[in-house]
């Protein structure tokens, strides 16, 4: 079965360029603005959208994404609303793949079976759940695959050749390579080593490899795009949301545009990368 993600990566391969995967947080800074951001992403150059599910205790995220999650929660965002936001987006866009990213507890409390039914109905294509390693596949990964959703796994610099097959076994859609050992939005990766890591992963799988963590601007994005199938950017977009807030900390008319502007810049970096390298 070909999924939206498979189709999108096949298209990118045909175009001979890397994709841009953009991460934004559901409900940040408020639900209405977050929906406007979501809607603006494909036009601004996003090839795949990661939509963050806010959680109180995001143990692998840095300060920017932690703060975004708390903004969303204090505005009353819930997992149910996040799924509704995606259904709303889907009513106007049938082609851009959407991946939900977050932590397991809200899904566990929502109920795994009910969540998978609702996620599928809302038009979600894949899941990234940071605190579910392959050792816990029975919790959500296997039911998600059965339900026809992609389950995207993170591979990291600590995932050696011996462990990679374990990580890749039930992975689908793409592999998300975390370019640094660390939390989101902090260190800038060494791009030569990132390219080596992508090559190493590709020896184990035919899935596309997206690289993220620490990509902050168009130059970084271009550097990563030379060696990867896609570039993931999150904290930089979330920072743009924060920078656009008004004095009361509320989203403004400028917020969605501010995010679209930086996505446009990153997209031009990604799209120009292969040409620049030739």
């Amino acid at each position, binding site marked *: 079965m070909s999924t939206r993600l498979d189709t999108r990566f096949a298209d990118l391969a045909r175009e001979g360029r890397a994709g841009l995967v953009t991460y934004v947080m559901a409900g940040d800074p408020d639900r209405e603005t977050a929906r406007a951001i979501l809607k603006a992403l494909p036009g601004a150059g996003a090839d795949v959208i990661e939509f963050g599910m806010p*959680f*109180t*205790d*995001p*143990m*692998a995220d*840095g*300060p920017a994404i*932690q703060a975004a999650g*708390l903004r969303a*929660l204090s505005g009353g965002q*819930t*997992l*149910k609303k996040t799924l509704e936001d995606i259904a709303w987006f889907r009513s106007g866009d049938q082609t851009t793949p959407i991946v939900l990213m977050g*932590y*397991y*507890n*809200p*899904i*566990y*409390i*929502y109920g795994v079976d009910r969540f998978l039914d609702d996620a599928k109905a809302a038009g979600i294509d894949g899941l990234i759940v*940071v*605190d*579910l*390693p*392959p*050792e*816990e596949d029975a919790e959500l990964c296997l039911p998600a695959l059965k339900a026809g959703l992609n389950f995207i*796994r*993170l*591979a*990291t*610099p*600590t*995932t*050696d050749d011996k*462990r990679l097959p374990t*990580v890749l076994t039930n992975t689908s859609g793409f592999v998300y390579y*975390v370019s640094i*050992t*660390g*939390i989101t939005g*902090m*260190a800038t990766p060494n791009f030569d080593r990132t390219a080596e890591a992508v090559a190493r992963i590709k020896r184990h799988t035919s899935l596309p490899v997206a690289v993220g963590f620490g990509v902050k601007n168009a130059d970084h994005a271009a550097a990563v795009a030379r060696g990867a199938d896609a570039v993931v950017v999150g904290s930089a977009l979330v920072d743009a949301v924060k920078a656009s807030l008004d004095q009361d900390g509320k989203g403004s008319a400028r917020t969605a545009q501010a995010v679209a502007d930086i996505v446009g810049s990153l997209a031009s970096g990604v799209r120009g990368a292969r040409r620049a390298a030739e």
Partner: protein
Amino acid sequence: MNVPPKPNSYRTGPDDRGRFGIYGGRFVAETLMPLILDLEKAYAEARQDSAFAKEMTGYLTHYVGRPSPLYFAERLTDHFGGAKIYLKREELNHTGSHKVNNVLGQILLARRMGKKRIIAETGAGQHGVATATLCARFGLECVVYMGAVDVARQAPNVFRMKMLGAEVVPVQSGARTLKDAMNEALRDWVTNVGNTFYCIGTVAGPHPYPGMVRDFQSVIGDETRSQMHEAEGRLPDSLIACVGGGSNAIGLFHPFLDDPTVEIYGVEAAGHGLTKLHAASIAGGRAGVLHGNRTYLLMDDDGQIQEGHSISAGLDYPGIGPEHSWLNDIGRVKYLSATDDEAVAAFQLLSKIEGIIPALESAHALAKVADLAPTKPRDHLMVVNLSGRGDKDVPQVAEILGTKL
């Protein structure tokens, strides 16, 4: 006096997936998984190695000061007029609490694994002080994460950690208490995976921590068993300990789980009351996933974690060790709760009547002794785990009692 577990034992957990029933597991980011698997392997090897056990026993005896006494609290017994009450004196350990038992084990393990940098989280500061102490003893770099709120309310312990050479990092995220300190320690670990050992302070976190910390703390129950045998010629009839994450409690309970005549009680922090602000994860929470394990947690209907509240900074964690969750569900241990006010009353009572100032954490266990002991016959042998001393809490209790120091 390690009694090997029998078939159908309550003592065989966790299973090879790190589960106690449905609880436990390994819910961590991929970056940490290879380390967790290394740790699991290193610990499995160490526990088979008699040299490790010998080294551990040596330091427990000569550095920590074990065995800790099992003290017959005669005046407390007379006061309640029921059960014969014994106190297991963990507050007499070096650094003033049971925390040092576990830290010693983990630091010796870290040394075996060649790790030079130790990180820890701390609430009240007892685990942080124990970790800083053993890092000083073995010349290891030590970084302790502590919620900024706890840094303010536990100033003496912060100063002690600094004296011992540790770096104390005040955590400003979330509610700035123990839960957030644990998040921050996990973030540090994810970032510094190569050289860093995460010394977790309680029987929670990803497998193998809950079982490993329990094993290190089981020295409490093992000693109690032989000491009670020496004092009374038989097993105790009941055991009581306070439960935050639950390491002192499981340490006392575990060696007795297969003795059906022994009643076992854990006491959670009821704060202002179970319908108000509290930290009673079992009484007021439900099963969820946080900090690497599935266990009872305080949370809202959307699975967002809520803050625990307790007068005691060591008990206000919104979760509990997974083995406790399982022991609750199967009914082997009965979990009660004590309010802030009950704990303060017990704090004062033990100070006045026995000349022992207990930690506010331990005072929660003592508060339920007040309920249970009078209902028991005079020949009922009750053991209360006095997990820590109350010096650190004196300024806070003075403030509550309206005394200016």
